[in-house]
């Protein structure tokens, strides 16, 4: 019974800790930043090259080492800069997992079966750092547009027990926030 009471106490304690965890920020050595985006309109699509700087926190690396799959989501939106009507919205997901037997990191893009294996985590992140994606938009009328991009560690895809702590912990805050990149489509 004593153990039980202690557990309950610990539970409330942890809840309080979780709630207050977001207040203190660790010295930043991790996080996601979109450095540059170049856009070249193609046939009913946009060829986008994103240059990013991704680094994972100590807690995220530890989770990865302990078998937690991390998912990095790249959100993209194309809007007409006149009326801000959304033309296209897409999300690309990159799943990273650690394979203890071969001591390698596996990268899976989206829901495809295409796997890439890396011996180092930085190699995996380097792949995502420099991305070239094609965003299908359909025919775009000539005019001004803007591309909004955001890359983040998807906390909603963490294992259920980690989601609540992740909501309140800065160690799990990997979000570039939205950045806007205007471009024009000529006739």
């Amino acid at each position, binding site marked *: *019974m004593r*153990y*039980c*009471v202690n*557990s*309950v106490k*610990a*539970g*409330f304690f*942890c*809840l309080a800790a*979780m709630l207050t965890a977001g207040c203190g920020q660790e010295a930043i050595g991790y996080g996601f930043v979109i450095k540059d985006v170049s856009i070249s309109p193609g046939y009913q699509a946009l060829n986008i090259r994103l240059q990013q700087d991704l680094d994972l926190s100590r807690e995220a690396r*530890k*989770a990865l*080492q*302990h*078998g*937690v*799959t991390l*998912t990095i989501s790249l959100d993209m939106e194309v809007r007409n800069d006149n009326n801000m009507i959304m033309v296209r919205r897409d999300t690309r997901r990159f799943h990273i*997992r*650690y*394979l*203890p*037997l*071969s*001591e*390698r990191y*596996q990268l899976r893009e989206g829901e495809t*079966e*295409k*796997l*890439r*294996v*890396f*011996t*180092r985590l930085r*190699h995996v992140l380097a792949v995502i750092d420099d991305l070239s994606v094609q965003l299908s938009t359909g025919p775009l009328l000539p005019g001004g547009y803007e591309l909004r991009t955001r890359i983040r560690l998807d*906390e*909603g*895809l*963490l*294992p*259920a*027990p*980690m*989601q*609540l*702590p992740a*909501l309140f912990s800065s160690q799990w805050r990997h979000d570039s926030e939205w950045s806007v990149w205007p471009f024009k489509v000529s006739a």
Partner: protein
Amino acid sequence: MAFQSKRVGRLILKLLPVVVALVALFASLILVSNVQQPAPGEAGGAGQSYARVLVLTVFALLVVVAGILHRVILLARNVRAQAPGALLSARWVRNFLLLSLPPALIVYFFSAYFLTRTIDSWFDVGVESALADSLTLGQKFLENRTMEVRNQVRRLGREIDNPDDDAEAVRRTLLRHVSTAGPLELSVLTTDGRLVASANINMLADLPERPGDYALSQALEQGEYAAAEPVADGMLRIRVIQRLPSGLPGARGYLLQAIYPLPESITALTDKIQREYRRYQNISYLRTALKQSFILILSLVLLLTILLAILAALNVARRMVTPISKLALATRKVAAGDLTHEVPAGDRDELGFLVQSFNEMTEALTAASEEAERSRAALQSQREYLETVLGSLTAGVLTLDNQQRVVTANTAAEEILGLPAGFFTGYGLSERAETEPFLLPLAELIDRQMGRGPAEWQREIRLQGSGHDSQQTLILLVRGSHLGKKTSAQGGTVIVFDDVTMLNQAQREAAWAEVARRLAHEVKNPLTPIRLAAERLRMKLMDKLDTNDGNMLERATGTIVAQVEALRSLVDAFGDYARDPQLQRAPLALDDLVRDVVALYQHKDQRVQFHLELVSGPSGLAADGGQIRQLLHNLIANSSAAVAQGEQAEVYIRTQVITRAGQQWLQMEISDRGPGYPQTVLEKPFEPHVTFESGSSGLGLAICGKIVADHDGRIALSNLPSGGASTMVSLPLD
């Protein structure tokens, strides 16, 4: 329609917290089930809704708390206002919580205990060690296998010619060495990863996959690269990259890449070991978070359960107490006399039966009340009728209870006795006799007769004085009758009395009138012969007698004639008294008549001084002027005669109009400052031959009494406290 929509809205508001709480409870349970499946690396699906469900649960908590607060505030306000049923509701909620909280808390603590123990039991040092060892074993196997195939590739590398010389020969060499046991694929690449020649055991296979940058760099830097690599289907393969020896300095370098398969049985086992190891590591890593999540969700479930219990207690209490509150309210209204209030019928349970019984009771009460009201109205009507009858009676009626307290006294009783309305009611007769001593004979008579038993009785008593006049003599004919149990539940006595003073006097007057009439008839007839005989004697003998005898004859016959005249006057007075009234009523101005009579007296007798206070008229007096003149004459004569010869006489005449028992009366008082009436006169004031004056017939007051009685009036004699006699005459006005 608006009423219905409002009702539906209120119902939704009532049910919302319960529904929300149930949804949140359900969601919490879903969370529990999700937390129990921490699939290593397979987060997703339900996991995505974790935060949403949590937010939903918190929102539900807030809604439920708001609902509870709202109800608790309402309940507290009702308790303070002492609303019907509020205290019962509060007690109900308290008891409900006292009953439901302990089991919930016990379940919570034991659940938390077993949960944490269960999670801890998942982790075992032996298991962890075994898994790690298994993984190490797998890694060792892969290393060994990798070493084997690396040696094979080294040997093969030495057999391959320089690709710059003959690429086709190189391809043939490669093709010769591929086999199903391995290598499956052999290829020669440039140092930048470009394919020069390749051979695959499967002739239809795609071109060889370019090795990763890391593998290439390793091969270039260290001369070879060999590692087991996972492939898409979860299988493992061994990739070996060997730098081929370069014959000439400055010539391009080449790499030999060989892909070796692993036996399926081995691959399946290593995959299984890896998967279990990852799962164990994952659970181990999530151990604390799991406990936190379980306890958090369990706490949420407990909190929701408790809040739901409170909500349920409040709702159930309200539902249970509402009919009781309505009944309490209705009882208050019924107690306040409102029997029309009906409690709406409830469910078909005991409370519903109680409500129905209450409504039936109020209906019965209403019927009984209406019946009682009808009876009361009938009784009141009967009472009013009886009072009217009693009030219209000329006889006085008193009803006494067994303690001789007067229960009712009619108007006539109070009027006869000259007492104010309500004088008797609630008092005993003896008690009232202390205030009005003239009632003492009546009280004694009734007391005496009631003491003798229930037989009816009748007596005539004389009361000396009354409420009207302390000098008046009242003669009452009193009859008593005992009220038996048949006529009155309380028992008692009814006393009926009549004022027979006038009747008594009238009888006496009639007797006196008969006497006077006979006396006048018998005496008047011989008077004339006696006078004539005396005058003849004087006339015949006067001349024949000497002077002395003549003088004696003259005195004797003079005396006879004078006495005969006196007798004649007396007989005339008796005649007047005995004569039947032949009133000639006509409107009469009493003030003028009084002034006429007074003028005559002032002229005739200077020693009489009059003081007049007369009301004008008054109108409405219909009387025989001659009779009233005689009345005035007699009374003024009495007042002036009462004063000794030579003394100044003062006569006061006052008139006023008064109202007595709804009837207007002209009241005339004639008083003087003389010695007053003797007691014998006051006792029998209007009886003939009672004189106090020498030379008077003694019929003056008797005639006055008769004249007043003929005019339906009242006359009373009294002596003034300051001295002097007072005669009060009351004549009715139309």
